């Protein structure tokens, strides 16, 4: 579904991605973990072309990601952001139908009916006509997920979806993501939630310094990391004191 092969990228002299290679199969859930600045968000943003990559190739459903293919690539992928990025001047419902109606040109009534079902599914149906600013962070992120699902994507990219949430609201969002995974959605998730990665991810990739240091089945990598750098990182995250 998603193939990232030998991708590199530099901002000036700063090499943010070095020879990054991995694949995500259809229906697979892959978590990207690693310290901040390790390049995991950048990889995600390269997949849907929010950032360009300098070397290597990225394919989505066989389509090589580049300026010319961005519309087709973005039609297959949706993204959920750390800071939600809901449109502040539109209601919750309008946020969810914005993509279907104004990018995919689907009839508004049909899109709105589906959007209401999605809002029901993520538990914010009663907020359909509210503006995002009146919602809590957890509610906003659930709307963000509904907005992504409304695109009927082949895969969803999650960029630290719970990092900006109050701790007691994190579970609401993670449960929705777990349900999506169970339904067979293809997901690439940048996260610091190791418990979630262990339980839900098929595979985990550990990144540091712009490269993939270690990749493997979630439980294996998280409980018995082979690389010293992975071990150090996991030690710090799991036992901060």
């Amino acid at each position, binding site marked *: 579904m998603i193939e990232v092969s030998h991708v590199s990228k530099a901002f000036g002299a700063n090499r943010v991605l070095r020879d990054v290679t991995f694949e995500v199969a259809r229906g697979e859930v892959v978590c990207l973990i690693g310290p901040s600045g390790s390049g995991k968000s950048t990889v995600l943003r390269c997949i849907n072309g*929010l950032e360009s990559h300098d070397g290597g190739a990225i394919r989505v459903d066989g389509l090589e990601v580049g300026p010319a293919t961005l519309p087709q690539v973005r*039609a297959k992928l949706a993204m959920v952001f750390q800071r939600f*990025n*809901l*449109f502040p001047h539109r209601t919750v419902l309008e946020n969810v139908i914005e993509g279907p109606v104004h990018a995919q040109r689907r009839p508004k009534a049909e899109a709105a009916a589906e959007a209401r079902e999605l809002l029901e599914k993520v538990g914010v149906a009663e907020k359909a006509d509210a503006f995002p600013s009146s919602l809590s962070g957890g509610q906003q992120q659930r709307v963000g997920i509904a*907005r992504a699902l409304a695109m009927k994507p082949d895969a969803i990219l999650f960029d630290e979806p719970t990092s900006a949430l109050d701790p007691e609201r994190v579970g609401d969002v993670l449960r929705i993501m777990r349900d999506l995974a169970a339904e067979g959605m293809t997901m690439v998730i940048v996260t610091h939630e190791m418990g979630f990665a262990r339980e839900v991810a098929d595979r985990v990739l550990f990144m540091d310094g712009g490269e993939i240091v270690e990749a493997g089945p979630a439980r294996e990598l998280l409980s018995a990391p082979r690389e010293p750098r992975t071990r150090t990182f996991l030690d710090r995250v799991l036992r901060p004191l």
Partner: protein
Amino acid sequence: MPEDFLVRAAEFLPILLRGVVVTVQVTVGALLLSIVLGLVWALMGRSRLKPVRIVSRTVVNVVRGVPIIVQLFYVYFVLPEFGLSLDALAAGIIGLGVAYSVYQAENFRAGFDSVDPALVEAAKSLGMSERKILQRLMMPLAIRTALPPFGNTSIMLLKDSSIASTITVAELTRAGQLLAVSTFQNMTVYTLIAVLYLAMSLPLTLAVHQLERRMARR
């Protein structure tokens, strides 16, 4: 004295109101022109092409750097030498519209700059085209930010429409001047003029405030 004032005011008011009509024409015409041109300069300033951006910056700096009265003289007295003769009202509207377009451009620019790039990324990730992003995201959010300075600019334009009197446009100030020199009733005439300008600017202020409040709710 107060009775005299009221008697004269009643006599002068119809003449001055004709001037008010022209002032409104000049202000509304120049305002619309300045909004359209201002948006053009602001969008050119955001172009990917450097020459386009340079043209926009140059227009803004040149127009902003020349007194409005000189620009009006230029449109009214100089353009005819190039075969473009405009009547005074048209010259006033065009001159003020161009002069004010650069302030509108700055208002729009501040508005565009205020749009969170993360929202643009969200729109891109939804697969929206550049045009749709401009229409449905950038413009509405930019206008919301640009509204308070826009109200300010509009009131300045209303007052500066009096500069059109220098190229014989029979707007409020000119109508009053003619009345004052023929009747010597300076106090009555200029008090009435001031009150009439206030009667136009205060509702304008209120209207912009209303608009701000309506948009801020979202």
